[in-house]
């Protein structure tokens, strides 16, 4: 079915420049070739139907219908050979280690600033720098417990880090559900090809949450705090809670008395010790952050400060997600670990540096401009695809608030054969979000979420903007 496939000069995950299948795709390719067109179509339909029936859906904000949609799933897996994965794993562990050291440092002695590695202005002006948590000791010194780092590959196939998501990264439920769907569709492939499993993720997550429990609590009560059923990731919240066998709570289920957190049960109040929160800092506690938050728990921060409850992720990690801070991560790695970064950043220009700003403003039609604290594909200018009006709009924004903007060259993301219609497969741009858990040790579930921009030529993989996903296979070997 892949005979008409054209890789168009992009880096293709499956085919090399000569149109030959890469070694780690050969086994899959051979088995896939034996599949008939209607067999493929049947599998595709039954997977979609299963997702819909199971309610594996997300809500799109601003959709007045209020209907959930399934996250489109592409049946052709993205395959990563062992050697490549182990390289990624080393790079990601290095990066998260440096980020946690950085957070510990800037909320305490701020040595990295004092030593002139990062200008103090950038840290102090960070929208998500929580100065009220200076000198606060988080349990086990772990700030980012769960990280979803976005990786991309450019024209030469080298992996680069696009961003670190150290607040409440979502999507891991799709990793697990995609795998289940693939196992149902191709039950015999996995063992034959030797694909590393992913279903240990909930157990690893639970282990981490137990590890960070306040000292002296032998059987901690752990809960997952969700903003509620209207949140786009609600399916994931219930899914993870169910897999871990912990309670899923909303802010209104919790109450703080005497600096301790309790949940309201039918038999009265029950103490809570660890909260895996899927609510941003701003909404956690209306007495400290946004007073208009209806999602949070009044007094929660107070209990957190008193050490009676642990939070994952810690408060204040948002500064590490600041796209200006991203620029400095390679320096953090050198500063804290004395190592060269294993995974490179995408070349980045800071609008608040005069020479960079000049370059950015002169080259807007060639660059991707990003607001420092937006995510989900919002607040972004894709220069080469933007209208003159959009470019002018961003030019003004950058001049008005340079601290809040960075620019990067447009990266020709790698592409992957993707089903388009009936028996037509075309290259579509993809990225990769591995999920890193930092507890007693740092673990990464093999692979992660491969997101794919389903619209031809599109580079935006976000689910809110026409993205889909693929199962990601990490092989035990290299072929």
């Amino acid at each position: 079915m892949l005979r008409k496939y054209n890789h168009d000069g992009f880096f293709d995950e499956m085919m090399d420049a000569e149109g030959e299948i890469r070694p780690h795709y050969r086994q899959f390719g051979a088995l896939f070739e034996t599949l008939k067109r209607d067999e493929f179509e049947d599998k595709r339909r039954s997977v979609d139907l299963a997702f819909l029936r199971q309610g594996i859906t997300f809500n799109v904000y601003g959709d007045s219908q209020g209907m959930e949609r399934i996250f489109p799933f592409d049946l052709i897996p993205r395959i990563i050979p062992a050697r490549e994965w182990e390289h990624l794993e080393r790079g990601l562990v290095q990066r998260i280690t440096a980020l946690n050291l950085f957070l510990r440092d800037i909320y305490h002695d701020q040595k990295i600033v004092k030593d002139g590695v990062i200008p103090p202005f950038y840290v102090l002006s960070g929208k998500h720098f929580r100065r009220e948590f200076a000198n606060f000791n988080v349990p086990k010194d772990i700030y980012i417990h769960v990280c979803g780092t976005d990786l991309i590959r450019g024209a030469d196939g080298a992996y680069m880090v696009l961003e670190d998501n150290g607040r409440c990264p979502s999507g891991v439920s799709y990793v697990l559900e995609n795998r289940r769907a693939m196992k149902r569709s191709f039950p015999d492939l996995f063992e034959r090809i030797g694909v590393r499993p992913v279903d240990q993720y909930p157990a690893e997550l639970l282990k981490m949450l137990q590890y960070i429990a306040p000292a002296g609590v032998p059987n901690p009560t752990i809960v997952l705090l969700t903003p509620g059923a209207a949140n786009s990731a609600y399916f994931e919240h219930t899914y993870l809670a169910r897999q871990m066998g912990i309670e899923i709570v909303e802010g209104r289920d919790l109450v703080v008395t005497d600096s301790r957190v309790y949940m309201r049960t039918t038999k009265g109040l029950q103490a809570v010790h660890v909260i895996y929160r899927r609510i941003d800092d701003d909404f956690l506690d209306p007495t400290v952050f946004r007073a208009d938050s209806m999602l949070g728990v009044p007094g929660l921060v107070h209990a957190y400060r008193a050490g009676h409850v642990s939070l994952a992720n810690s408060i204040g990690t948002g500064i590490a997600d600041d796209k200006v801070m991203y620029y400095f991560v390679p320096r953090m790695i050198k500063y804290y670990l004395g190592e060269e970064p294993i995974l490179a950043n995408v070349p980045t220009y800071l609008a608040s540096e005069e020479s960079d700003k000049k370059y950015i403003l002169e080259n807007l039609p060639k660059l991707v401009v990003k607001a420092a604290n937006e995510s989900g594909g919002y607040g972004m200018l894709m220069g080469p695809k933007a209208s003159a009006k959009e470019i002018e709009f961003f030019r003004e924004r950058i001049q008005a608030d340079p601290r809040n903007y960075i620019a990067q060259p447009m990266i020709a993301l790698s592409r992957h054969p993707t089903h388009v219609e009936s028996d037509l497969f075309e290259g579509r741009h993809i990225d990769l979000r591995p999920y890193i858990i930092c507890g007693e040790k740092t673990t990464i579930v093999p692979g992660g979420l491969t997101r794919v921009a389903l619209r031809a030529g599109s580079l935006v993989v976000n689910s809110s903007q026409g993205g889909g996903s693929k199962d990601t296979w990490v092989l035990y070997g290299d072929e």
Partner: protein
Amino acid sequence: MNNMLSRVANCLYWMSRYIERAENIARMVDVNLQLLLDYRDLNDESLLDHWMPVVQSNGEEEAFLRLHKKATGRTVTEFLVFQLENPNSIVSSIVQARENARMVRDQITMEYWEELNRLYLFVRSPEARKVWRQSPSEFFQQIKEASLHLVGIGYATILHNEGWWFSQAGKFIERADKTSRILDVRYESLPERGVPKSVSQTEALGWQAILRSCSAWDAYKSLHGAEVHPRLVADFLLFNEDFPRSARFCVGELNAALRHISGVPSGRFCNDAEKLAGRLEAELQFSTVDEIFEQGLHGYLDQFQTRLNNVGNALFDAYIFQEFSNEGAEMMIQQEEQQQQRKEAS
């Protein structure tokens, strides 16, 4: 072992209650549509007489008149079946049942969730309207079947723990309420007090339809033969001990569910819900249908619904809505402000 979150208990209660509601509205509209097939010479006047009580029996008259000028077969069925503006229409009930289920997805099984989600996807699809247009009866059949499947799937797959008993309480409170409302549909044909002496052929068909809509026709026949009399119908639907949709049976199950939740044996109580449900059950056990007719069936049913409501409210007060002192959010804000000032000063 964790206790059950109050919100979760509440969701389970309403999930079952809404499913039961959808099923019973399907039963009620179905039987009324079928009844019409048995009447001849229908004019607008008699149609209005026919449909308005159906709307009234659900206590929705005001909401209905806000949306529709006239009670016709089309407007009433649209209102009771599809209209999302009616919070108690079949589709609204299913949407809400599923919304509640979504919030307690960890408490129910995959099988249960998928069946409920399937029902939801069906009623929200164009297919539902199509089935409805071709055969309303077939449509109601599908709603009833899905609800009954859910009863079976729940019984056979969900842990019968505390949450289960909350969902049972919701189911049986709703079923008792709806059985009483279905029984009330023909009250205008009854004398205000006392048992009617004779029943016309058409009337008898009306009462038979009531039995059918409760899946009670066969069970009734095995007890009383094919003779249909309002007195016997009321006796059966209110007081039969073994029929799973009778008021007595439902209140018995409701009471049992409450006692499973608290662990308090019958004959005693530890909260108002148990007290009220226990009393209601005892009264159903020790009443006769002639007394009820003497007092007037309609008035009795009205009271019965109010008392069920009171049990529901007492249950909410006992387990769901608990006022906890919040240590004064004011005080915490102050402390937090002081903290921040200290930090900034340092």
